[in-house]
């Protein structure tokens, strides 16, 4: 797939975002435990608008947990998360910070989109409806507007001819590209990518990564990416964060992180997977 888009295609993936550079996501003293297992330990980090950040680290180091906390699929045990200046899991009521109600959470999470490892397309809907369902029923777009948006996005991911198929009739790679279009149709400011190529046959990985590269280079959407595809991480990332035992132990631009990491644990990890 080529990386030069017509303006309308570019527009389709464009989030309504703030000026690049301002802080979009912030984790303050976030702790998450599963039973006795501390997955995130007093975590502190922030991501600026428009940045593409890749989270690396051994499995169980808490990378996916961060994405799931941001998507409100999990709630932190301690600490706060803010997105675009709004608390994600808390709200201010009478000057106090209280756990957020369902409505508040739903509003804030409209700014965030997620692509899952297993695609999670809705099998009961054809490709077009998978993409238009939430824009119509959550954002209140008209059916025509939503379909227009869906067609532009399907062109972007190269699946226009499959618009009228059910997800089960598509290959894994095609399903994942539909899932990317579905997430972008909500025009989120942040796109979370949770090991999006791990469940794919090797020959289908490249197509999905190409689409994501195009999106990363042609839009100013903020990306948080958990991946084991280090080549891809090097291509798209502005920053790479190395996680170990629930903490960020090292971070930096990809050239530095991949070529000259400072931390012993990072060197070990990279030499094991590269």
């Amino acid at each position, binding site marked *: 797939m080529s990386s030069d888009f017509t303006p309308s295609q570019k527009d389709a993936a464009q989030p309504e975002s703030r000026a690049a550079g301002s802080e979009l996501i912030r984790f303050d003293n976030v702790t998450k435990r599963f039973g006795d297992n501390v997955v995130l330990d007093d975590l502190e980090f922030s991501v600026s608008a428009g940045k593409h950040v890749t989270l690396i680290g051994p499995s169980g180091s808490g990378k996916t947990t961060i994405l799931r906390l941001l*998507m409100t699929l999990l709630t932190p045990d301690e600490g706060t998360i803010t997105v675009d200046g709004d608390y994600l899991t808390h709200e201010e009521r009478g000057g106090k910070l209280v756990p957020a109600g369902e409505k508040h959470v739903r509003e804030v999470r409209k700014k965030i989109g997620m692509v899952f490892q297993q695609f999670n*397309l809705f099998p009961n809907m054809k490709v077009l409806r998978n993409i238009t369902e939430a824009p119509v029923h959550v954002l209140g777009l008209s059916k025509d507007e939503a379909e227009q948006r869906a067609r532009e996005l399907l062109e972007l991911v190269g699946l226009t001819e499959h618009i009228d198929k059910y997800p089960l009739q598509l290959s894994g790679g095609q399903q994942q590209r539909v899932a990317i279009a579905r997430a972008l149709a909500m025009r989120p400011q942040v796109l979370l990518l949770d090991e999006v190529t791990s469940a794919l046959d090797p020959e289908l990985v490249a197509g999905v990564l190409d689409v994501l590269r195009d999106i990363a280079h042609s839009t100013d959407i903020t990306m948080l990416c958990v991946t084991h595809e280090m080549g891809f991480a090097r291509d798209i990332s502005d920053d790479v964060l190395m996680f170990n035992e629930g903490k960020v132990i090292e971070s930096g631009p990809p050239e530095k992180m991949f070529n000259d990491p400072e931390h012993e644990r990072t060197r070990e990890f990279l030499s094991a997977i590269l």
Partner: protein
Amino acid sequence: MSSGIFTEWFLPGVWITIQVTLYSAALAAVVAFGVGIARTHRLWIVRFVAGTYFEIFRGTSALVFMLWMAFAFPLMFGWQFVPMAAGVLALGLTYGAYGSEIVRGALQAVTAAQREAGIALSFTRGQRLRRIELPQAWPEMIPPFNNLLIELLKGTALVSVISVADMTFAGNLSRLATSESAPAYTLLLVCYFVIAFALTRGMRALERKAKAGLGQTPKKGPLSGLLSRKLNPEGEMSQARAGTAGGQG
């Protein structure tokens, strides 16, 4: 069976049996979905009330409940149902309780991943239930619903004891009036079987249609193609892969 009883009682009785089956099934379906969904509700009090309903109706006899509706209810409340209504209520409420277990199970079998995808797109709980969870659970419910519908059909014979003139009532009448028990009861057995078979065929067609709505190729059966649409007749995966390769070029 003498021709008088056959035309005067038995043929209308067949129609009554079909009516009682359809009305009770409709009521049972409403109860099954209402109670079944309530049993997966996030508030414990809703689950508790629905669970109590389920336990009570599972644990009482449909026949006794029907007799209670027909004979005890009028004494207690000074108001009585027409016999068919009492029968339909008793059957519908009882089989609805069994049906709620099917609805609950099928809803809980929808994967957590689907729920998460719904959350990630900011759907409300109600939207997730209506647009994602129920449509996916529905095809899984149809085979057990078919079993339950057949049970219900056979259960409608109970209404004959509260003097609803269904086909079993006509069979009993024939035995009492003419002592032709053998042909009367044999005919009854055949009739129940024929109706049950017709219901099963209908439910199969419904199941194929529902599976097609998830993009699954329906299994071939004697009546396939009756309601189901044919999807992607050629080998769908190989075709899809060829498409992927082309799309990435």
